[in-house]
């Protein structure tokens, strides 16, 4: 195996690990947000508009950590600075 092959292999494995751990964190966080929002909706159905708005905003903010991991993984695969070409 040449150096380039080793770098490419390591990049792909690293991209997989990045995505896996990033997805775990975001999934746990989002499930907690969703559970808390369901709880709040059940207690106060009148506030549903404000709860839903806050729910979506917080979901997207938590999701962004997973998106950062996705961007890192895509950089490793498609725009890796250490592979030639």
């Amino acid at each position, binding site marked *: 195996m040449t150096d380039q092959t080793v770098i490419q292999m390591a990049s792909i494995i690293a991209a997989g690990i990045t995505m896996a751990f990033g997805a775990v964190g975001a999934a746990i966080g989002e499930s907690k947000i969703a559970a808390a929002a369901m709880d709040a909706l059940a207690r106060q159905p009148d506030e549903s508009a404000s709860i839903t708005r806050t729910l979506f905003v917080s979901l997207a903010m938590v999701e962004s950590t997973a998106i950062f991991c996705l*961007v890192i993984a895509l950089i490793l695969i498609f725009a890796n600075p250490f592979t030639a070409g």
Partner: protein
Amino acid sequence: MNVRVFGDPRLFEIGPVPITETMLSSLAVSALLVFFALWMRWAVANRPDSLMATLARIIVQRIDQSVQDILGKSNPAVAGMAGSLFLFIAACNISGQLPGVHPATASLATTSALAIVVFLTVPLAGVRARGVGGYLKHYFSPNPLLFPLHMVSEISRTVALAMRLFGNVMSGHLVVGLLVALAGVLVPMPFMALDLLIGMLQAYIFAILSTLFIGAAIGPEENA
């Protein structure tokens, strides 16, 4: 298949300025939005009962209401800013559903430009509302020791704003492209529907977060 995640190929050059696909699609979306805005203005002035006039009133009222919910009072300047951001980003995200169109928001350059606009608007709005001293004071409150943290928060939230929009739109586009290449015609349809939903949601969140940042700079009495 032709995967393009980062970078933007040059189509042609006008003098020293390279023209990329992203510039063309964002220009087309802007031109379309301006066209509809002029049409709606004409309709509101001349045909108050027509469909376009009603649509214009609904859009303006919803944007104003969203801003009012966050700031606690109506603020036409902030509503114009947030509304423009929302309409432009939503139109860009939807334009990605057209075959052959690369959505402008799937390019890191566009989202960075939008985030920098928000980054520059926050101190401008703060200085206009509270004066230079009043705005700068909030960097040193509650304790001057927190000044570096305020700086880090300003920069990191701008980067997060750009990366969030870019990552969501680009990944949605990429997933649909991969599925078209792997599975054929009908399989990617649910993902395209999800892409539409995510596009609208991300546009909403970009506008709402900008409003929150501007609201926090304008006045401490709002619990942003």
